Each structure stands twice: as structure tokens, then as C-alpha cells.
């Protein structure tokens, strides 16, 4: 178990840096997690993170990679609606790294 500190306040994370309490999440915190992941958050990164959170609020799970690429393609243009583009944004893998920054639990299983 670890913690991540933002604006003088500490928030609980698991061993890998995923937030334990989803309700703790805010944009400053996301920025801090992104920094630890060595990711410079651009507008396009935020589009992905915001979509993940919207989807999670509705379905209690992160979207499948294909659902995500389709949604991002619609928002940012078809050339960006690809798994490869998502890897450019989140080099460790869109499913896991983007979820971490969005404050969602880590997708588990054979993924």
C-alpha cells in the first residue's frame, strides 16, 4: 500500500499506484499520478481519461479497448481512433495506464 500526495493531502493507493478510493479522484490528483508515470497530460490525454470516467460511472468497469478507440475516433478524428494512437498517448498500454490516471481500478485477467 502506498500514498500519493497532492496539495499537502495524502491519498491511499495500492502497491502499484492505483487509487484505493475512487471518490478521492480529482484533476490535480490525476496530474500527479500522470507525473509519476512520466506522462505529460495534453488535451487528448484528458479526452481519454474523461471518457474512461464517464464509461466507468455508467458501467462500473473501464471500456473495452475497442469501445475506447471508437469513442476517441469520434471525438478526435478517425485517424486517432486506433489502438496504436492510444499506445502513443499511454505507452505502458492504454487499458492499464490510462485507468490508473483516471483513478479507476486496474483491469484484471488475461489483458
Amino acid at each position, binding site marked *: 500500500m502506498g500514498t500519493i500526495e497532492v496539495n499537502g493531502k495524502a491519498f491511499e493507493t495500492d502497491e502499484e499506484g492505483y487509487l484505493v478510493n475512487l471518490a478521492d479522484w480529482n484533476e490535480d490528483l490525476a496530474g500527479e499520478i500522470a507525473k509519476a508515470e512520466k506522462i505529460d497530460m495534453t488535451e487528448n490525454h484528458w479526452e481519454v481519461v474523461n471518457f474512461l470516467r464517464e464509461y466507468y460511472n455508467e458501467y462500473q468497469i473501464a471500456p*473495452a479497448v475497442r*469501445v475506447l478507440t471508437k469513442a476517441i475516433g469520434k471525438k478526435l478524428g478517425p485517424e486517432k481512433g486506433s489502438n496504436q494512437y492510444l499506445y502513443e498517448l499511454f505507452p505502458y498500454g492504454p487499458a492499464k495506464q490510462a485507468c490508473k490516471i483516471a483513478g479507476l481500478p486496474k*483491469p*484484471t485477467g*488475461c*489483458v
Partner: protein
Amino acid sequence: MAEITAPALREFPVAPAVSPDAMAASKPYVATDKMQEALGFPGALPEDWHDRAIAKLGEMVGKYRGLRVYLDACVHCGACTDKCHYFLGTGDPKNMPVARQELLRGVYRRHYTLPGKLFPKLVGARELTKDMLDDWYKYYHQCSECRRCSVFCPYGIDTAEVTMAAREILDSVGYGQKYSNEIIGKVHRIGNNLGLPGPALEDTLLGLEEDVKEDTGADVKFPLDQKGAEVLLITPSADFFAEPHVDSLIGYAKVFHAAGISWTLSSKASEAANFGLFIGNYDQMRAIALRIREQALELGVKRIVVGECGHAWRVAYSFWNTLAGIGSGGEDPFARQLQSQLDHRYRQPTHICELTWDLVQKGALVLDKEANDHRVVTFHDSCNVARASRMGDEPGGQFEIPRALIRAVANRYVEMRPGTTHEATFCCGGGGGLLTDEILDLRVKGALPRMESLREVADRHGVNFMATICAICKAQFTKVLPYYGFNRSMVGGVHQLVSTAIRLGAKQ
């Protein structure tokens, strides 16, 4: 996370120089008390862990005759030493299968053999200290239960059984692994390893229907919870979620569509994987398998078909019959009810490769092989399919049917080096419950032998696609290929190739 390094590829793969304790720091996260207790295991190490562990070992060697034989029979001949991908990739001598299994064997000898009780030092008997318990945790999580070493063992010792026994003892003293146990909890709570709830699954499947319609113009359906369907498809939940897995799911759907077979997925049994096998726990394995029987009865299906998932096919082919009464062998009333419901003109269960290959042979599918001409394909045998199951009616069908299927849908196919395929295939490096990020360094190193044979066919024959029929292999290779200079999209499913070649609506 520790630094992740890939060893250099070697032109002539030989056993590496030993590097003692090279992987002594490799340790997957330990399950939390909540994850443990949800499966009926103690939440943390109790004070009397030593006595409990020894008692559990005694209970197991009493119950499982095979385990006792595997613990007694080893003569330390060393035939297995250089057969393990984790030893070849790390050089840590405790990853020689004989040495890894000696960690448990020494303790067994101390407590359950006469010479070990009387003269422990003379027979290499060992005490179960806390350090030894930690070594068990670390090194039995550096074995992917792939059973390659067993192929070369002159006594036929099933080394994976020893690993499974050690993990079962660890769970019984509150020292379980987070990755596997968290996932098993999700299967019971939500229905699949991912934790994908029914509504999300439905939404995902509707999206796939749209995609396929857009690509092909055909109304290919991905039915969910459809009572009265002929086929219940049990597939890994990664097929719904991840790339490249989803392309195989699309392939299965196109095959069912083209052949006019009614089929359904189940939101409650939306997972083929059975991690009960990985942790060596019979009760978990059975509970996970029973979800499938329940759903098969509920939906009234005639056939049960398993998607591309390696260890799931082992469980389905080898154990579903007595675990759940799918196939003959189950004797309780529900098993008998299921037996009378299923259509025995078909194999129960059927692997998706068997189903598609049967259709190809009957000429029921229109295939455009040229559609795969941009690919030079090789096939990676997944360990649990290769060494623990079969397909079709002939010995070796588990090797030949996927290959025959690939050749039916693609023109350019190349085999990797003999000794690295078929029953001697190398594990992808992430099997057996080790597909977790905190041990990525181990996973990268364990992939070395497979990467070497892939490099060879890539350089000589231009291979640019490695097909496989296991969700773990797909996820593992997607992750580790870049460490060896390959593109991650080089790996994919056999039904991804089928999906590319199949022509819908063209059959007269």
C-alpha cells in the same frame, strides 16, 4: 518496480551460466486479507503457520497419490535443468525445475519419509523456516506450470503438480498471490476475470455488431443469454476487452454466422479461464466449472464450445467431465441432466478450432486465403493445449488442427525450429498465474527462448504474424515483444486469421 531487461538473443541457444539468486527479488504481490478470506483461506500468516503448512502437505500427499510419487521419484538426474524458459532466461539455479521442486521435496522428505525423519542431513531433508516459505512463494511463482520439463523427465514427473501443491499450501497459511486470488474472487462475484458486469458486456457486444456490419455489410450477431441457442460459447473475458483478443471473438462470430449455427454467450459464465487450476485448489476449480454447467442447463444449449484459451481447454478437455458433468463422468443428478440435454453427435466440449476445422472440411465456409497474403504466419503452441489436452480423433490433433486451420485460411505459413514447438513448445513466459505487471522482468526474461525461435523465422522467412490460441499468450506477447525489438501487433489469434479470410453471404 525493478529494472526490466531483456537478455540478448543468442544464435545457438545453450544453457546459460548459473547466476545464483539472480531472481531472489522477484515476488508477485501478496493477496490482501479480503481477497484471501473471500476464497475461504486465512487472511494472513497465522502464528502456527509452520505446523499448518506441514499438516497440509501431509494431507495432500495422503490424498493425491500422484503428488507423493512425484515427490519420491526424482533421482536428480538433471534432465530437466535446461528445459525451463525461466532458467534459460534468468540463469537463477533455483529456476532449474529440479532445484525449484527440491524446495518442497526437501521439506516433504524431512517430515514424511523415514530416512528424512531419522537422518535429515544425509538425505538432504530441509526445515520449513520462514526463509524457506518465502523461497516457496518466490520460486513457485517463477514456474508457469507449463510442464515442458516433464516432457524430458525420464520418470515422467509432473512438475506442475509440485508447484500447484506448494501454492495450495501457501494459500492454506494465508500467503496467497494477489493476481490469481483477486481474479478468482471476481469470477465468483461478477462472472469473469475482468469484472465485466452484464450491462457492460451487452454494450461491448452491440458495439462489435456495429463494427462487423460496417466492415462486411453482414448482420453478424453476438448473442447474450439467449435461451434455446444450440451452442453456448465459453471464452476468456479478455476476448471482450483486449486487443488482439477481440479479433478472434469476431472470428468465432463470423464462423457461427456463416455456418448458420445459433449460439450464445452467457453473462453469468462469461469466462473460460479457471484460475483454480493455477493455485492448485480443487474446490475453486470445481466452483468455477459449475457456473458453466448452471448456465448450460439454464439456457438449454445442445453444445458447449470453448474459445481460444489455453488452460481453459485443459480444464474443459481433461476435467470438466468429473468436475461438472460436461462430457461423461459426472454422476450427480445435475450432471446426468446435462448429459441428457447435450447433443452427443458432437464432442462435448468442443474446441472452437475443432468446430471451425470440421466446417472447413465439410466445405461449409467460403474462405479467401489471399486476404491473409500480407501475413507470413507461424504458430505458437500454447503449453496447456499442447501438453495437457487433445483435439479431434487422432493423437496430436491439438497440434495438427490449429495448423490445418491456419493453412486453410492463409497461404504463407512457416514452422519455428523443431524442439520449440508441438509438445516441446516453450511457454510464452506469462502462463500459470504469472501474467502480472510487478513481475514483468521475469516475464520478459522467460520469453527469451520463444523470442529466439521467432527471431529466426522472422529473419529467414519474413514471419510477421505469430498465431496462438491462448488469451494469456496473446496478452503476454503483446507486452514483451517490444522488449525484443518486435512490433506488438505481431501476435494474434488463429480465429483472427479466420476472420480476415472468411467471406460472409457468399455461400450458395
